[in-house]
């Protein structure tokens, strides 16, 4: 028994040692974002505080209490839930409320890269609403699948919106007209994470079936698929130069802890480095210079690895 305990302790130590750096947090951080200059990381923590850490020192630079049900959508924008149908859009840099929006139901919320559009995937009526942030007006209420949205993504230019549904289908709409341009129906597992490549040419998604799928962002025909993570994938990120991908594993019902974090070279399509996460990976992000990967996994810390680039 003692030997087992020592072995278990050694294993957990090895997993911890695999991080190149760790930033401590008062409460578990969720979705995380690097600032544009890479000097800070911002995350919404489980105690309903949005915190910004100085990456160099690991110290908290900004700490803002928000309501429960708030979503952090970028390094500078938080969508604070005011009530069941109302949200406040905050600029975190200046700590000012940009807009109060009525008609934003509860559900997964994302913002376009230019900050002009919000997409809210309602749990209640299974519609994805596109809302103009400047006017606070709803532009479209798009019919999503029966399962509800697992992931919602804007294209980098904000022209397309993607919703991956728990019913396994992926829908793509034009944000201007609200036209459904593609419904991917051949998947046999939900996509839990997705991003467009930084050049906007491909949509990359992964989830239940352990595979990373690439679609051409004009035709939405399959372009590539990568197997090799070997676990259900809960999070992914693409490096700013588009050359690297990182995928993080899902635990609890599909595998045992720890789970894998895999760094891929997208030119060769091969995993070049495998790290470990103590639990299901919540969020992954590359630093703007591509030198670091930051991760959250439900622990009271942010873990960082060097990419080696």
């Amino acid at each position, binding site marked *: 028994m003692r030997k087992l305990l020592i072995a278990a302790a050694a294993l957990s130590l090895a997993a911890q040692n695999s991080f190149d750096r760790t930033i401590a947090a008062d409460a578990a951080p969720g979705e995380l974002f690097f600032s544009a200059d890479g000097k800070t990381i911002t995350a919404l923590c489980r105690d309903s505080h949005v915190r910004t850490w100085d990456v160099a020192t690991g110290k908290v630079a900004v700490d803002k209490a928000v309501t429960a049900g708030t979503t952090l959508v970028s390094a500078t924008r938080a969508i604070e839930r005011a009530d069941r149908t109302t949200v406040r859009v905050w600029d975190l840099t200046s700590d000012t409320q940009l807009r109060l929006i009525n008609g934003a139901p509860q559900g997964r919320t994302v913002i376009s890269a230019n900050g002009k559009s919000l997409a809210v995937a309602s749990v209640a009526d299974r519609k994805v609403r596109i809302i103009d942030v400047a006017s606070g007006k709803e532009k479209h209420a798009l019919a999503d699948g029966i399962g509800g949205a*697992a992931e919602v993504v804007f294209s980098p230019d904000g022209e397309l919106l993607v919703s991956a549904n*728990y*019913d396994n289908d992926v829908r793509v709409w034009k944000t201007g007209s609200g036209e459904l341009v593609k419904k991917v129906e051949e998947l046999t*597992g*939900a996509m*839990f994470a997705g991003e467009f490549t930084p050049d906007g040419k491909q949509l990359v998604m992964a989830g*239940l079936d*352990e595979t990373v799928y690439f679609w051409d962002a004009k035709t939405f025909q399959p372009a590539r698929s990568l197997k090799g993570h070997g676990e259900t994938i809960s999070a992914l990120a693409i490096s700013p130069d588009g050359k690297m991908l990182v995928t993080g594993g899902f635990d*609890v019902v*599909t595998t045992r802890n720890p789970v894998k974090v895999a760094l891929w070279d997208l030119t060769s399509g091969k995993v070049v480095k495998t790290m470990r996460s103590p639990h299901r990976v919540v969020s992954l992000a590359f630093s703007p210079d591509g030198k670091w990967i930051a991760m959250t996994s439900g622990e009271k810390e942010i873990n960082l690895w060097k990419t080696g680039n």
Partner: protein
Amino acid sequence: MSHAKPNRRQMLELCISRGLLAGGAAMSQAQLLAFWQNAEAQSHKPTSAEVLGPFYRKGAPDVKNLRAAGDPGLPLKVSGHVMNTKGQLVEGAKVDLWHADHNGLYDTRGYKYRTQLKPDAKGVYAVDTVMPGHYSDRPAQHIHYLISAPGHKTLITQVYFATDPFFEGNPEKNWNKRGIAANKELVLPVKLFETGPSTEVTFDIILEKA
């Protein structure tokens, strides 16, 4: 002596004539009959909906025995009818059901403990499987359902087991503990058989018209 079994209408008329059924004051026999027929038609409430959850996989094969020889886990038979709100058989229904194994793990690579059943001519579906295990995200044992049929609203729901330790021996009181079940009716009584041992539950599904 044998005689034909009365149909439902004849039975209602018989009850009305003997004063066994009553409605509002001063209803004629015809009004009373219409009232009760209407009340019966409304009596099947649609089954409560629940969330799909992250682990649904499209394309499960139609397999009636999900339990392989030597599978660990308590054998479980699940069966029931697929009906409309009038209690009539629903034609062309497809019953997708899926659940975790005895350890609380889902098969994400294949279709173990996943099936899409077509009810028989009497509207009955049945499957042999094992009692699902517990896992930390959803602390009560459960089976997921997705039921579709032409002309009806697709229903997504889940069922739970009254024998689950999660309900602490009192599902009547604890059915919504930690917000687990949308409705008490989704916590099913479990028949336990000593031979085997094995278990059995019945879950009738009532679909709404589209």
